[in-house]
């Protein structure tokens, strides 16, 4: 079942001079099993939008339906068991390393599963699995999360969400502040999680990631949904008005075509697919 936003609006500081309408009548549907990107300029409401999926914010108008859960403006319609919803939807915030607090890495990662009712040992086991998954080996388990580097801290906090085994994983700018290699590892990790059947919702500014990994894109502009599409058709349009940047790879293919190559731009997602397409066009000649 999908995540569905039905006419959702959200106003910050309602009924005060500082009132600010962050979301305006959002109608979207995020399919189960998809790798969806939410893009748009800073302050366009992306983070507010994803907070609704986890019922961290309740809509001012309309409702969000996540499987059997309802997050509605109407208090009576709202699902009461938020814990079940939050187990199902893992939300990784921007700079998640600020949420670490336990003495050891494994305890911190096991914190989520324990809250969701797992037994101590099972939680630790899930924590170890999640830590290995994010590329932190046994040597890290007993260390204090505060002595790790920024990138390692981020891995720990993401492991903290993965250990809860969510069906939907929402990640808000997971690569911000990471070095290029670190970002690639991080994204490959999400790709792996996606392959395993988790729906991934990625909030990002980096169009290269969108091209490489996502299968659908939601463009937000000033609190409204400007476009729901797939990456290739998005980059075919003028996207500067949403202050989005065309991915380098897409530009490269366009430039190559302009110089006389004949590559199917719709099939190029990353370097290996580019090579495939080059081979195909060579054979065709």
């Amino acid at each position, binding site marked *: 079942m999908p995540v569905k936003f039905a006419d959702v609006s959200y106003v910050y500081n309602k*009924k*005060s*001079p*500082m009132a600010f309408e962050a979301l305006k009548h959002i109608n979207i549907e995020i399919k189960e099993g998809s790798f969806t990107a939410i893009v748009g300029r800073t302050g366009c409401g992306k983070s507010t939008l994803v*907070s609704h999926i*986890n019922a*961290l914010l309740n809509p001012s108008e309309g409702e969000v339906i996540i499987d059997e859960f309802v997050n509605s403006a109407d208090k009576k319609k709202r699902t009461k068991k*938020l*814990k079940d919803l*939050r*187990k199902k*939807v*893992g*939300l990784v*915030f921007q700079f*998640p390393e*600020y*949420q*670490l*607090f336990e003495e050891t890495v494994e305890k911190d990662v096991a*914190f*989520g599963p324990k*809250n*969701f009712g797992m037994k101590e040992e099972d939680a630790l086991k899930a924590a170890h699995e999640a830590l290995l998954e994010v590329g932190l080996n046994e040597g890290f388990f007993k260390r204090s999360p*505060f002595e790790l580097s920024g990138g390692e801290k981020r891995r720990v906090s993401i492991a*903290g*969400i993965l250990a*809860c085994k969510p069906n939907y994983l929402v990640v808000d700018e997971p690569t911000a502040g990471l070095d290029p290699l670190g970002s690639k590892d991080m994204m490959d990790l999400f790709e792996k999680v996606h392959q395993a059947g988790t729906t991934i919702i990625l909030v990002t500014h980096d169009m290269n990631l969108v091209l490489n990994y996502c299968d659908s894109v939601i463009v937000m502009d000033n609190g409204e949904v400007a476009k729901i599409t797939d990456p290739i058709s998005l980059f075919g349009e003028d996207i500067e008005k949403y202050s989005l940047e065309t991915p380098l790879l897409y530009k490269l293919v366009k430039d190559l075509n302009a110089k006389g190559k004949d590559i199917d731009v719709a099939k190029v997602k990353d370097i290996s697919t580019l090579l495939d397409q080059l081979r195909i066009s060579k054979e065709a000649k």
Partner: protein
Amino acid sequence: MKNFALGRYIPYNSFIHKLDPRVKILGIVLLMVCVFLNFTHPVVNDAGETVKATYWTMTAIMQGSVFVLSILLLWISHMSFRSVLASLRSLWFTLIFLLVIYILVPTQTVMQLGLAWRVEAWNWSVYWDSFADAGKIMLRLMNMLMLTMVLTGTTKPLDLTYALEWYMAPLKVLHFPAAEVAMTISIALRFIPTLLEDSMRIMKAQSSRGVDFAHGNILKRITGVTSLIIPLFVSSFLRSEELANAMECRGYDPRAKRTRYRLLKFGWRDIFGFIIPAALLGLYIWWSVDSSVFTQFVLSGVVLP
């Protein structure tokens, strides 16, 4: 946790917002003194001696007037009553606590309001005076809260700091570091919203890891709060270090002579802002010293109990 109405600046353009912060501080302090005055009158006790005891009618009327005035001030400054009421709602526990204390340990020397009930078996009596005492303190608390809200709700934190610095200026003669103290206060005030934002963010992050801050048993809630406080500590230490570095990079010298972009100026409104509270305080002091004047002026014709 969502209710931070208390002490938050709310941008409107009312008469009180336009007052000079220095006058506002002084005015509020004067009104606060009114809140803390005691009103007594001579009463004959059981032994036949004349002693001073709380003059309940007068206290009720005088503190009630401050209450009405505070509400008026809140109304003028466009503050929402709902947020005031919401912050008062948490005071019910204080009221019960006060009641228990005053019933167990009556402070009045002469009981003027009569016996509420008596437990013969323990030879223990409860007087209405205890309730009146608790009520008096509650009224004081509420008055204080509302007056503070008027001050902080209508004055930008930075303006408040400037005003405080202005008041501390004479102390510079005694080498009191007024500018540094003002700087410290303004930094502290500046970081309240940032810390709130941080704590909201961390709360959200921990909620999505299954922490329930509002429900559950005590032990679970304590872990919940720890998961909020430790990251908050870490991030505030990081922030303070960053701020110190940033200030040093820009060559901040606490002893340097500095100028101001925003200058505080007294205007015609400020005359009212000073005269009204001052006159009120004068009146209150006069009547609290000599309560017979009050009896004559205000209560003449009203039959006293």
